[in-house]
């Protein structure tokens, strides 16, 4: 029975200063989150319930280690300072979450919706990148679930929280995650969470993010009147079946129950569906084949974002780099626009007004999907004419249809119909027109 700290109560920090309680913000199974002030600036304090942590000393040391190492990217609400152990427990300080970020579970509960297709795809890209950087920094997350993310519905920006469970490779904090999100071998207690099991959890989270249902919960799970602990062990551990497993249709989504999966899965291009089919195949789930890497996902979602355009109906939709497509909203046929083929088909960027070109498209050694390099615009005098504007400091050499090279510097625009290829410092982008 938690007792709460009153306003004005001062909690000493490990660095000698103190955090003054302003108000309680929320409470979870592990502890309470307070708004606090440290030296005039406001932060969040997560304070653990007594006894909530299995091995407090190890947990505290791990937090200390994470504070010292620092956040992998700015997407993490990372522990900034530790408190001293007082009153039989301890806590840590992190930044406050800005109000425009909403809990992932609010999306699942339809309290909030992604404003557009690109905000959903951006969220997938941001979550993937966060975990890629976390893993690259030698950490594993261990307890990935729908409670770990805050997402801005307007643009898909992501904040990853609960980073107190993050530990270096090989370390296990004895975290007991939720069966629905944990890798089958963790559910079965064959293994402790690590990077490989994070990869499975990431696939589940990404599926839930885009399709708003659970990848292992279809017909057979609904047909079980009572989901007992034994059945959870079976469905998430010993015998998981992906609802869109092409080799086994025994667990397909049920009309009227799994409405989101039924609605959103068919809207996504085949190559994205295939990534989930691979990541959630029986072989990948049982560990017979390796799991999709964070890199694979990041590339897949970057490529997916390359294909998002705005239909004349006002809705965003995917184009098909191999042919025509239909708008996900109005159903009208969308002829294939010119596509910039980058790095020998690693990326295919739809050259359609509003689409942005990123560093990864022009630099073969980069996977930066955030730095904008160019933008497709309509000619204000003739909206049927589209041009590609260079917004970077790098000068491009545009090869025109007649074979001449024209330099395009920052701020300049090349009309798309005149471009055959663009020569970047270490790569060439080739324009492909529909036949």
């Amino acid at each position, binding site marked *: 029975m938690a007792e709460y700290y009153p306003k004005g109560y001062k909690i000493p920090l490990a660095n000698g200063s103190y955090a003054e309680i302003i108000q309680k913000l929320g409470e979870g199974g592990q502890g309470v989150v307070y708004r606090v002030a440290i030296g005039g600036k406001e932060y969040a304090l997560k304070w653990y319930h007594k006894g909530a942590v299995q091995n407090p000393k190890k947990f505290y040391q791990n937090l200390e280690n994470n504070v010292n190492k620092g956040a992998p990217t700015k997407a993490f609400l990372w522990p900034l300072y530790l408190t001293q152990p007082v009153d039989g427990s301890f806590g840590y300080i992190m930044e406050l979450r800005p109000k425009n970020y909403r809990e992932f579970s609010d999306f699942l*509960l339809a309290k909030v919706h992604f*404003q557009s297709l690109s905000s959903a795809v951006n969220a997938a890209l941001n979550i993937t990148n966060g975990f890629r950087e976390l893993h690259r920094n030698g950490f594993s997350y261990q307890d990935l679930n729908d409670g770990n993310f805050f997402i801005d519905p307007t643009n898909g920006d992501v904040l990853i929280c609960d980073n107190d469970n993050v530990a270096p490779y090989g370390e296990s904090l004895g*975290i007991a995650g939720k069966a629905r999100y944990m890798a089958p071998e963790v559910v079965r207690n064959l293994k402790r969470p690590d990077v490989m099991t994070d990869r499975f959890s990431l696939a589940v989270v990404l599926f839930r993010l885009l399709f708003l249902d659970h990848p292992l919960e279809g017909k057979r799970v609904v047909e079980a009147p009572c989901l007992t602990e034994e059945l959870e062990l079976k469905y998430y*551990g010993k015998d998981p079946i992906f609802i869109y497993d092409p080799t086994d249709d025994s667990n397909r989504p049920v009309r009227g129950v799994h409405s*989101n999966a039924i609605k959103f899965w068919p809207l996504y291009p085949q190559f994205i569906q295939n990534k989930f089919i691979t990541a959630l195949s029986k072989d990948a789930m049982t560990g017979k084949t390796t799991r999709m890497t964070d890199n694979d996902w990041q590339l897949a979602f970057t490529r997916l974002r390359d294909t998002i355009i705005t239909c004349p109906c006002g*809705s965003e939709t995917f184009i098909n780099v191999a042919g025509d497509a239909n708008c996900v909203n109005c159903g009208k046929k969308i002829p294939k626009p010119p596509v910039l083929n980058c790095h020998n088909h690693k990326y295919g960027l739809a050259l359609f007004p509003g689409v942005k070109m990123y560093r990864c498209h022009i630099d073969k050694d980069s996977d930066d999907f955030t730095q904008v390099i160019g933008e497709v615009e309509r000619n204000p005098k003739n909206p049927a004419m589209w041009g590609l504007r260079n917004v970077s400091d790098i000068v491009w050499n545009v090869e025109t249809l007649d074979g001449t090279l024209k330099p395009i510097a920052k701020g300049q625009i090349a009309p798309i119909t005149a471009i055959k290829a663009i020569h970047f410092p270490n790569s060439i982008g080739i324009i492909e027109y529909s036949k």
Partner: protein
Amino acid sequence: MAGIYENAVKVARRTMTLFFLVDTSGSMDGSKIGTLNSAVEEVIPEIYKLSSDNADAAIKIAVLEFSNGARWITPAPMDAADFRWNHLNADGLTDFGEMCKMLNEKLSRKAFMSDVAGSFAPAIFLLSDGEPTDEYQKELGRLKENNWFKKAIKVAVAIGDDANKDVLAEFTGNKEAVITVHTPEALTKMIRFVSVTASQIGSKSSGVGKGGVDQATNKQNDTIEAIKTTVAEDPVGGVEIANTPVSSENQEDWDW
């Protein structure tokens, strides 16, 4: 222009029903039933919040009172959002067996456990201060054969020393799932704590990382574990669990 995600609906959630089985016999009259009424009323908003923020399951509430016979206060499990606690009055005998019989009838997919998206096993919270006055053994025996009951999280609170803790332990299947409270403060706290904890554990996908290989976890044990930890650290006292030292020396306060 609205995006296609505007069409997304709330994910399919299972249902977890929290049952309150309340002894409203004559001995409960006065501060016992009064405290109980206020405590349950106060915890309902917390249960509602747990349910509305929960992507795993929705929590529903069902209430069965027993004295002379037994009566469902809720004709069917109700969404925590719509549920209002009607203060119960205490009068009459303790027809424990009748309560078991009526609970058994409703723990069925044809009755209360009928959600199309499926259910988690229920959480059953029994509150009593006395001794069965009917021949309860046969009905309790039948109830214990019910699979929903077997899988349920079962916790009983014995209010004061006159409660027959053996019967309550028989009901929960575990001595440690019987908590004795000696003061109104302790009753209030335990109603809140057990309702919230059992709802939290019961309505979430089960925890992993404990026990042996391919061994399912047990939500009942997880709940008991959580209650024991809390009682052991509780500074106020007036609460007692089998095999756990009484948490307070302050026992002259016992007013029941």
